[in-house]
């Protein structure tokens, strides 16, 4: 069966300040720490929160800092915020 295509507005930009991995147990600590309610809890217990207001993210990182499970939540900088650096000896330039 063909995939159902919904008619929805454009997603907000940036749309994904963090990435949850399979390690997330849905404890919602990040939901409670986030100062601007970027997330809501998932309706199904034990699942990773839903990112509802990504464009309001302050990029304070407190959600990642609060998480008790290593690697369950990763910060995901928007493209325009990814900074550069240079290896002083070789001159090689890299980016976050």
């Amino acid at each position, binding site marked *: 069966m063909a995939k159902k295509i919904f008619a929805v507005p454009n997603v907000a930009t*940036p749309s994904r300040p963090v990435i949850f991995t399979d390690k997330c147990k849905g404890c919602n600590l990040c939901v409670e720490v986030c100062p601007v309610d970027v997330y809501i809890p998932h309706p199904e217990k034990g699942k990773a929160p839903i990112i509802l207001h990504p464009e309001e993210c302050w990029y304070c990182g407190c959600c990642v800092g609060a998480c008790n499970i290593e690697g369950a939540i990763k*910060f995901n900088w928007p493209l325009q915020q990814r*900074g550069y650096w240079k290896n002083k000896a070789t001159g090689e330039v890299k980016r976050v």
Partner: protein
Amino acid sequence: MTSWQEYLDKEGHPPVWPYPVNYEKEQEIETDVLVLGGGIAGCWAAISAARKGVKVALVEKSATIRSGAGGPGVDHWNDCCNNPLSKVNPDEWAQRLANNSGGYTCGGVAREVQCRENYDALIELENMGGKVRDTEDKYKGAEGRDDKTKFMISPRYNYNHETNTVIRVWGSTFKAALRKEALRLGVKIYDRVMATGLLNEGGVQGARVVGAMGVNNRTGEFMIFKSKATILCMAGPGSIWVFNTELAGITTFRSRAMSGDGQVMAYKAGAELTMMEKTGTLNLGTGFKHNWYGGAGDASYENVRIVDANGKALPVPYEGWGSNLGQMARGGAPGKPPWEVVRDGVLKGEYALPFYGDFPSMPKVESDVTWGLMIGEEAICRIIVDTYNASGFDPRRDQLQNYQLIEGRSMPQWRSIDGAGARGGILIDDWNMRTSLEGLYATGDQLPASGDHNLAATTGRYSGRKAADYVKQIAQGKIDKAQIAAEKARVYDPIKKNEGMDWKELHAGVARTMQYFCSEYKTESLLKMGLDSLNEIAENYVPRLFALDPHKLMCSLESLSTLEYSRMIIEASLARKASSKFLTFDRIDYPQQDPPEWNKFLTLKLENNKVKIGERPLGFWGNMKENYEKYNQDYTGVYKGK
């Protein structure tokens, strides 16, 4: 599954609002001291009042655990004149700070309290579990580290160790410690509640403040707080002239949620505000963010040399020990701001872009301190440092790209009142830190030209104890049902519609008005056009605001705060018929800068809902040392109680 669209894809419908929605339902809370805003100032105010044995309620729009500009962290404890390594006199230092910027500062009360008491606050913070010393000897050998006390003195304002007033701190530990202490002392914390308005006794503007109203931004429930004293500790607004969530945030220091609600509700209640005409230009950064921390050039970078693409040192200041190149205090070529010298050099081919922070040229311990402690602990930078580290950046080997010249300054119409010092606030003409209204106190970001972590902490701590003394002498005031009914009608208006104008469009519309009519270029007619434009928005577009859930209701109310705050700025700008270097205030029709007859504070308040302009002379706070001592004879220093 981590986004609403993925949820929709899988489930076939969007998620249902996850919290119970109780619009219009009322919850009434009675307390002695009500603290509005649970950031740094608010937590300190609550703790300090609770230590005096009174009932305290704290209302926080976000979550107290990390909320506020200082919630994620801070790296400097400034103006710490009583620390054992300090070489300055607190009263003289306070006097100097109060006289900065032509005397247009947050005032003598706040500065004297800060310089007298912030070392006590630091020690109390340590007793609560905040980290303020290098107890593990991690940075042994770093310049400024005192082996006896293990304090880490910063080079900030500290050429050749002549002041030693700034202590480097591990501020990411502070907020959780403060919240824990507040809870331990029995403070009732109401998270996710946006305070929307103050209650005046009998509902009369200008009368004693007897509580506040608010709305829960998850459930929509209406909150009524009855209090004997109320302390405003909320943030100033972060985005009056520029609004764009699509670019990932507005400024480094202010989240989108910081919308000046406190000053607006104080104004509506009849309190006097001052310096509302003062603005600055917006500090921009990569993607509108991290203007300093991701790109060098701030105090946290205090001793990192900035070099060009070929490794040539730039003539811009950095704050190295004894370098006489202080980022804030000294440096630059004679007659020209340093970054203008750099710009000229770039255009002539003397300096090649891009620029870099030259970490590898620093001794290892200094680079560790700057990267790990100073940047790592400051504001929202922990996640930046962690991200760079995880991506392979190594300060021993790599230079960090600097964006200061390209993105550091905005266009002049993209103004800001978010930078430290670049805004007005609530007038404090009282040594108990009371506002012009009985029962209402204001601290931290509510004060004009404030914006520093330890100023917020110490003024919060001070107002908490003063408000506690006040409530012991007075009964609850009478709240007015009509005032509550009017506020409920205002607050819930957006949820009665499901189409019209959303909060973002309203906010962006207000911002554009401010760019057009209240920018760097001000004249009587432009400012009046601006006021007309804002009034037109209020009349024709505010009634169309709609909100689909309690969160968007909060955002809508924040946009209304932005609109009201903008009106205050224009009213104050109309009142000052002179230009002022110190207020970053230029009137094309009154070009003379700081003529003597205009060297005064203008105040703004509502009387019977009509704007009333008043004034105070510069230095109206009087003799700071004498007044402080007169009003604080019972002050006992570091808290020793349980």
